[in-house]
């Protein structure tokens, strides 16, 4: 365990170098978000006062997007997938095969440390932005909801990590994984609820997307926060989220063991 704490500490030190980049990335990311929110405001402005879109009030919609931004800062993979793919391609993973260190656990420590540092520096612009829109930002109805939201975000982070890990492991088989990562990301962007809340889609499509793991990366935790899933639906959702995390973990292990057989330690 101690060695992984050490990896975590190294991860913190390494990512601290990028703090200015993190700040700019978070700040620049707010510009398209502001644009999207202006468009939504314009749509609501043309409707009679208090009108709903897919049972979201204007405040509900604004809160949704602010929370997307928040969940994204906490869970998005930044460089992890590129680094893993590069490790494989350049033969750097050979050293992990020789050491009593589990590569998945090692990457997980780096991911968590990276997210911790990112959040610390992204929180300044994100918090200012949220404060600017505070009139439309709703807080969770009770501490219980906040607690389940926190748990759900952690699960979303794990799922996000396993997904990125599996995608990066494609580097065992293909020369350039970046196109696959981007194609996957395009689907994720839509199906996780990044672009808009999934329940403003036609019902059948929303139902279809909910059969995939994607909504559990973003849409589900936010729905928990906003109190849009309650009672048995909430527990079912959490169970599904846990199931996807376990499956993600299993897949990560499986793909790794397959890949390592194929691995020829180029340049290692």
């Amino acid at each position, binding site marked *: 365990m101690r060695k992984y704490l050490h990896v975590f500490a190294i991860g913190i030190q390494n990512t601290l170098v990028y703090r200015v*980049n993190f700040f700019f*990335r978070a700040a*620049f990311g707010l510009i398209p978000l*502001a644009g999207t929110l202006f*468009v939504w405001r314009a749509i609501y402005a043309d409707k009679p006062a208090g009108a709903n*879109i897919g049972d979201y009030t204007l405040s509900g919609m604004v809160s949704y997007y602010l929370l997307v931004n928040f969940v994204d800062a906490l869970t998005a993979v930044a460089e992890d997938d590129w680094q893993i793919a590069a490790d494989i391609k350049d033969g750097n993973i050979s050293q992990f095969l020789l050491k009593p260190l589990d590569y998945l656990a090692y990457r997980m420590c780096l991911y968590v440390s990276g997210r911790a540092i990112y959040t610390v520096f992204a929180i300044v612009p994100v918090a200012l932005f949220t404060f600017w829109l505070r009139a439309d930002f709703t807080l969770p109805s009770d501490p219980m909801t906040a607690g389940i939201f926190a748990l759900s975000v952690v699960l979303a982070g794990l799922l996000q990590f396993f997904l990125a890990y599996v995608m990066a492991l494609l580097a065992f088989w293909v020369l350039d994984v970046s196109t696959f990562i*981007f194609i996957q990301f395009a689907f994720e962007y*839509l199906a996780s609820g990044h672009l808009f809340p999934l329940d403003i889609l036609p019902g059948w499509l929303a139902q279809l997307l909910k059969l995939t793991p994607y909504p559990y990366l973003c849409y589900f935790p936010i729905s928990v926060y906003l109190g849009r899933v309650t009672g048995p639906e909430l527990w079912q959702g959490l169970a599904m989220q846990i199931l996807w995390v376990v499956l993600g973990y299993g897949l990560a292990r499986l793909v790794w063991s397959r890949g390592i057989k194929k691995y020829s330690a180029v340049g290692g």
Partner: protein
Amino acid sequence: MTTFRRYLSLYGALWRNSVTREMSFKANFLLWIIVELLWFGLQLTFMSVLYSHTDSIAGWSKWEVVLLVGCSNFIQQLFTAFFLTNLTEISEHIRTGKLDFMLLLPVNTRFLVSLRKVDLGAYLNAACAVAVMGYAAHRLHLAPTAAQFAGFGLMVLAGLLVHYSLMFLLSSIAFWTVRAQGIVFGYYNLFNIARLPDAAFPRGAFKAFFTFGLPMLLVSNVPTKVLAHKLGSPWEMAVLGGMSLACFAASEALWRYSLRHYTSASS
């Protein structure tokens, strides 16, 4: 005229180089086109979901917005075809000292660092954007006159010049700090607001800044409005034209100033 000819033939040589390079990874080349098409599709999906809940956004109808998204993507793809890879590599040239080598070549250095590599896939994606625009224009029953086409072409060039100048300006920051790459990629976020209808933005600091500071709300809105008869006044064209020249002048000033203070990374 002979200088122009010379640069044209130089660009031809750079083109041939890029074709050779790209064709050595054919599968990758095709996959990148698919990636770009997916993101374009995603933008169109977003808009069509919005319009499944409303008939107009700040006076823009569905097909007008499709025309706008198409136009924005068209400009972005042209930008990618000519400049994007080159501009993101500038900080690398400075960091590694490769720029020294380019400064010594008997050719305008700005020309060389801006246009060295051509992104061929982006031409195909630009063609797709034109197809989407054509379909949207058909749905809007638009029949642009020759003057409208000329105005549109001119405004697309102005929009392209804005993107190029601003990103080049940001790349020149690399002369002063090694962290410029993050800022250059950050610029990419700005493309996202270029494809939103400007009328949706209320008067205020945000709109003023993205009109007269970083004119993102002009670059694709003005050309689209030329085609869709939505121009409030012909002055909008003059503002975009003027802003594009101002951005270019600013980028040239910083470039020259930075080069004068350039001390090379290593020997």
